[in-house]
């Protein structure tokens, strides 16, 4: 026997459950309690860069939309800086880069408005293609799922991205690429997430 390591252990995750909205988005649960709910304005009014909308659905292993899912988004600004003391540099006033996304309970469709992030510096001096980090919780998900959303109009940057290139199965890389369209002058990226089944989205241990 040697010395004892006195590290604490991380508290275990438990599912967010079906009523996660009460805590994190009470308006969606059907009541008004807080002066301001958090996470509805990701980029703020002063953010530079291209204004975009991301929309999608999250599907379960049967191909059905998960209608009670909640997502959180975490992204850099258009310069590739995160709003954090170690985030790489300055961001615009009001730019938090974090958002909460809830679904339409009838269809499971979700959408959020933001600005397109810039490329951020990754490990070992390798630039990461523009991406949005997503965290997915719901009833039946025992521990939040982490994934990344990349953009299909960043072909060159995506091809060099150190994280995309970690995915040994090249045919699975496309599950992380959002598809750009335009609708009524609005730039929209579609990003469907498949938790299980055909074309299961790549999730990360971060």
């Amino acid at each position, binding site marked *: 026997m040697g010395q004892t390591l*006195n590290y604490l252990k991380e508290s275990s995750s438990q599912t967010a459950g079906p009523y996660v909205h009460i805590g994190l988005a009470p308006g969606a649960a059907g009541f008004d309690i807080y002066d301001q709910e958090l996470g509805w304005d990701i980029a703020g009014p002063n953010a530079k860069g291209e204004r975009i909308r991301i929309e999608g659905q999250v599907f379960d*292993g049967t191909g059905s939309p998960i209608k009670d899912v909640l997502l959180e988004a975490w992204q850099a600004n258009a310069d590739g800086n995160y709003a954090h003391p170690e985030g790489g540099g300055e961001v615009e006033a009001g730019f938090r880069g974090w958002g909460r996304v809830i679904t339409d309970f009838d269809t499971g469709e979700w959408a959020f408005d933001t600005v397109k992030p810039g490329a951020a510096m990754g490990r*070992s001096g390798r630039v990461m293609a523009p991406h949005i980090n997503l965290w997915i919780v719901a009833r039946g*998900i025992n521990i939040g799922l982490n994934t990344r959303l990349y953009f299909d109009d960043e072909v060159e940057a995506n091809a060099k991205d*150190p994280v995309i290139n970690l995915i040994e199965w090249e045919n699975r890389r496309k599950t992380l690429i959002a598809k750009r369209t335009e609708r009524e002058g609005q730039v929209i990226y579609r990003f469907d997430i498949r938790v299980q089944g055909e074309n299961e989205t790549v999730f990360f241990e971060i």
Partner: protein
Amino acid sequence: MTKPAEYYQRDRGRHPPAYTPNYKTSVARSPRYSLISLQQSVSEITGPVFGHDDVAALDHDLIKNYAKHGDPVGERIIVHGRVLDENARPVPNTLVEIWQANAGGRYRHKKDTYLAPIDPNFGGCGRTLTDDEGYYFFRTIKPGAYPWRNMVNNWRPAHIHFSVFGASFSQRLITQLYFEGDPLIPLCPIVQTIPDPDAIDQLTAKLDMNATIPLDTIAYRFDIVLRGRRSTLFENRLEGN
């Protein structure tokens, strides 16, 4: 710019796996492929920062934050503790959000149809920031147990959902608080998704007589541990150059 060190790897042996067939909803909502392991980059070691402008004075007081005509029905409790990391260091100024059923086991949610009544004076959510020492407290009502459709006769033990941020997206955690002595804990398929009994104990709040307010409110202590972070950095090419 300081060179960021990584957070300790998650001990998956203390977290529930994705696929837990006794908790039936997990069956179709669990990935079948392995998670792909990332060495953390700036995207993982950063996370949203919150401040006192984000929360209002009564947000942590669930007895008062939705009261319309008086206090909600039920056992008045204080839930308090610290948010620490695996190095036993406090996690200051981090957002802690909670949600729960009322004393009868009913949630204020348009999707909850349990026959126990809504309490007109109880919303069921609260939020606060930890102080410089990682300390937080809430005042609330002890939630009731309630039935749910998994097996046909499953009951959730009394519990409070906790959402905690920490300083980085890799520390993000949602968990649940259970109450010491609740006989439903060993019977609950959601609690029992956790493979390690010691990890279940860690989610079980202790009666804390020292923190009770005599003749007023009983107290439970609940500390939360987030992932720790390396303090020594020997790589010379982790970030940037």
